[in-house]
């Protein structure tokens, strides 16, 4: 059979995000897949070198549109570590609740993408509706639907508005109440099971070798979660479990996502119960004069897609000298995707890509 070169994306019904894969195919079988990122490259880290420490807050969150919140968090953590800023106790809890809400929203978006891709339209509609409920919460809390700019060095930007706790609880209850429906129509649906089981299988050893993290690694049976390993915010203040699966295929990855979402909802309830009162913000120095001592720092958190790291360098000036993000989609989208696509069928490209939870802007930056 003749070997063909197939351009998959960026304008393609099976592609989520502005990403492209060049496939060398023979019939339906993929001989080689080459990730072709860069459609969303804005040179973020270069732009950050032109902006002062505080001016970078509105811009870092733009790096990942699906879950901007973890980007805010990691930059705030990096700045706090370099500058030695203190964060009030309550702000830690607010940050955790906020990040977990973001995780729920992000996973629901992933669920929309996955179910939409595989043709489970009902689930896609639900997931997007439920994500909108989370976005309404964000709008109430931060004033922005998508880009929130809420986490600030030294705390958070505003406290909870009045009655916000009840709104979180009722929104999460209406999402949680739909979990049996999700299970029936999607996760435990035979059609979906057959479609996803055994697809894009990766062993734990290979995943480790290729630098995987997040769901990709947890679906192979390793409880690797930065929130547990190196707790930040208020993740060590409540009990919670790291959900894992053993099989390492697309199906187990999506189940890990589902279990994480449920775990996040429980965690938010627990955090809301034990949240202390008090100030939420320690004022940062005057933004026009704020300089951070020379030095470098590496911080990492668990975003909804895996390990998110930031290597931040200051030369003692009022702007970062260099910032470099280790985004979770980077190894997933550029190495593991290429590996898993090799030998797969063309019909499974989107399936595998979304199960790896590849978010294109995060790779390109």
């Amino acid at each position, binding site marked *: 059979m003749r070997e063909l070169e197939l351009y998959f994306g960026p304008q393609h019904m099976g592609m989520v995000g502005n990403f492209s894969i060049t496939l060398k195919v023979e019939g339906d079988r993929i001989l080689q897949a080459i990730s072709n990122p*860069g459609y969303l490259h804005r040179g973020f880290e*270069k732009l950050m070198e032109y902006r002062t420490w505080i001016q970078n807050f509105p811009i870092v969150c733009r790096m990942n549109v699906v879950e901007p919140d973890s980007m805010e968090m990691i930059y705030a953590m990096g700045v706090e570590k370099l500058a030695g800023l203190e964060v009030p106790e309550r702000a830690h809890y607010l940050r955790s609740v906020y990040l977990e809400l973001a995780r729920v929203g992000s996973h629901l978006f992933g669920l929309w993408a996955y179910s939409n891709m595989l043709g489970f339209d009902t689930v896609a509609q639900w997931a997007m509706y439920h994500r909108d409920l989370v976005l309404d919460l964000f709008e109430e809390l931060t004033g922005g639907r998508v880009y929130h700019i809420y986490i600030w060095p030294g705390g958070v930007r505003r406290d909870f508005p009045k009655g916000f706790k009840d709104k979180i609880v009722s929104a999460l209850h209406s999402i949680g109440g739909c979990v049996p429906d999700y299970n029936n129509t999607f996760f435990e649906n035979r059609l979906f099971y057959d479609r996803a089981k055994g697809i894009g299988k990766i062993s734990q050893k290979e995943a480790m070798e290729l630098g995987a993290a997040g769901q990709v690694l947890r679906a192979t049976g*390793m409880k690797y979660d930065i929130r547990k390993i*190196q707790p930040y915010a208020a993740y060590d203040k409540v009990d919670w479990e790291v959900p894992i699966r053993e099989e390492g295929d697309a199906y187990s990855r999506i189940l890990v996502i589902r279990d994480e979402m449920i775990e996040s909802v429980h965690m938010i309830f627990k955090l809301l119960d034990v949240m202390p009162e008090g100030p939420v913000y320690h004022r940062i120095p005057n933004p026009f004069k704020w300089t951070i001592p020379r030095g470098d720092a*590496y911080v990492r958190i668990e975003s909804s897609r895996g*390990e998110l*790291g930031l*290597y931040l360098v200051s030369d003692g000036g009022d702007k970062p000298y260099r910032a470099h993000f*280790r985004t979770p989609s980077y190894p997933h989208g550029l190495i593991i995707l290429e590996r898993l696509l090799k030998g797969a069928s063309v019909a499974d490209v989107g399936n595998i890509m979304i199960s790896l939870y590849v978010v294109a802007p995060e790779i390109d930056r």
Partner: protein
Amino acid sequence: MNKEFKQELESIFRDITVNITDDVTPVIAAAKPQILAILRFLKDKGYGHLAMISCVDWLKEAQFELVYLVSAYLKGDNEEPGQEKITILLKTRIDRDNAELPTAIPVFENAEPYEREIHELFGIHFTGHPRLLPLFLEREYKIPPFRKDFDSREYVKEVFDKIPFVEDKE
């Protein structure tokens, strides 16, 4: 990261400095030829996760600083508990002119896209890398854009701002 590990490192490799300022991010500074050996050593010691490779352009010193961030995965029988909390920063400095470095792919396979990115954005050549092709960029830049002497604002003025609007002919 404890003292014994530091001593072990310093006994095996000459001319390296190990700086333990905080518990979680020890810094190892080493010369270029030793990098691969140290990476291999660290991998054998359980630091099997190359989180990323970063590059800093120190224009005043006319050097690039390559930073390999290596951490550990969880293990069933953890030899050294708490190892997974540590991210080692392995740093090396190379000259800015004709910057060249051996590739780390033989040790860590996932070094590939990171090195490709650094090649594209900083113009550092990695010897032995199988595909140093463009990753992100479409246009060609005389100076790789992430170098400090590339002025993005100036570039925008030079290139994009000079393109005229298309107005309807009257």
